[in-house]
């Protein structure tokens, strides 16, 4: 395949940055999107140019680092996949592909396609944990019976990989889907009850302070989320938040 890539290049956090066009040839449909980027970067290095910086780690859809906004959608046109799992057969010979970093006040660009997602870490630090000592004396998981429906819903929420595609896709750059997944995975389990009130209040407070937008319930996050995290989690977080506000 022969493609035209339009990629956001930005030297550093302070630089202005712009879209740069790169023609590329010899791309196989079985390559992953990141492999295609590797081919481009090899060419750039051989020409003595700076390779395009992008985040990646596991390349199997579990770490959430491969943040790319491809042709107007987070992780590209495919559903329920990350960029590393996106195959080039989703594109046609002669296509022009626009590749941008996540755009959000809460995710400032570090360089090229790499953004700073430490805001998500700070939200997690604000309450995304339970105060149970797990070093050495862990209880058997089955010692506390939990209803299957709740266990499944908690597990579904826990599959969130913190990639930030929800923020990137939302017209408001809202982080509600991510935060609600992190609240829900505990809200449904007895272990999560101890800090339930503080957790939701503190995590939402941190989310607001990081400059993410509000939720308009457009549902774009749910559609673009590689893990299929459901909007039900946002409703659950809203309930938790209201209950916690009334309490304390």
């Amino acid at each position, binding site marked *: 395949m022969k493609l035209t890539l*339009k990629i*956001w290049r930005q030297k550093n956090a302070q630089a202005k940055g712009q*879209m740069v066009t790169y023609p590329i040839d010899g791309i196989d449909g079985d390559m992953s999107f990141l492999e295609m980027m590797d081919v481009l970067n090899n060419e750039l290095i051989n020409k003595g140019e700076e390779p395009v910086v992008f985040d990646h780690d596991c390349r199997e859809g579990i770490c959430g680092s491969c943040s790319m*906004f491809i*042709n*107007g*959608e987070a992780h590209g*046109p495919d559903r329920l996949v990350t960029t590393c799992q996106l195959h080039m057969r989703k594109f046609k010979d002669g296509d022009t592909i*626009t590749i*941008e970093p996540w*755009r*959000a*006040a*809460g995710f400032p*660009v570090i360089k090229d396609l790499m953004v700073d997602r430490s805001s998500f870490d700070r939200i997690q630090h604000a309450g995304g944990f339970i105060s149970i000592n797990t070093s050495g004396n862990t209880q058997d998981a089955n010692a506390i019976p939990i209803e299957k429906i709740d266990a499944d819903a908690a597990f579904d929420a826990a599959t969130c990989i913190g990639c930030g595609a929800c923020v990137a*896709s939302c*017209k*408001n*750059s*809202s982080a*509600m889907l991510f935060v609600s997944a992190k609240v829900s995975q505990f809200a449904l389990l007895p272990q999560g009850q101890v800090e339930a009130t503080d957790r939701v209040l503190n995590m*939402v*407070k941190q*989310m*607001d302070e990081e*400059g*993410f*937008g*509000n*939720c*308009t*319930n*457009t*549902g*774009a996050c749910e*559609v*673009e989320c590689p893990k299929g995290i459901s*909007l*039900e989690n*946002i*409703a*659950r*977080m*809203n*309930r938790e*938040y*209201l209950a916690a*506000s*009334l309490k304390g």
Partner: protein
Amino acid sequence: MSGLLKSSIGRKVAMALSGLFLVVFLTQHFVINSTAVLAPELFNTWSHFMGTNGLVQFGLQPVLIFGVVFHFIMGFALELQNRKARPVKYASYKGGAAAPWTSRNMIISGLVILAFLGLHFYDFWIPEMIHKYVETHPEDPTRYYAETVHKFENPVRVGLYVLSFVLLALHLWHGFASSFQSVGFNNKFSVALSKFAKVWSVAIPVGFIIIAVYLHFNQIPH
């Protein structure tokens, strides 16, 4: 409780509750207006009641005005915050691939409704207030029907009303169902509730359109 209206979720819940309150009001308004087509005498009776009852005039009316003003000011505040949350825009953004137009353009439909409310106040509310409280005419309980019918004589006004109701339907198509999610109501009843909300959000504005067009074509002598 403190600071609830400063938080993103608190604001959204306030948006939903004020929106739901306006939905209830709109239903009531529609029921009364429908009598202008179905039973003009009943229209006079109810309008007279609404226009002269102390509880309605000095209890409910201020609450309604507060509700509307609160809703659109909060709407603007959220819109501004949301724009600030993405300082650099995408070169390519396929919003429509993941979310419907109505949900992404609440501020546009909202602004049209606000402009309509300006016209609507100029047409009905301000003349009513002057008639009753400034010029203090003696109350004639049979004046309402003829006054209302004459307002719809001008085809330009009828056109503006129809256009506004279409935008109102678009606003509610997303907004009504969305408000349940905002207050945390998302469960096995949600699919049915959302269907009801969608039917309602088309039926009521279409009903208002039918009334406006009907009155336009069924004028009575001045």
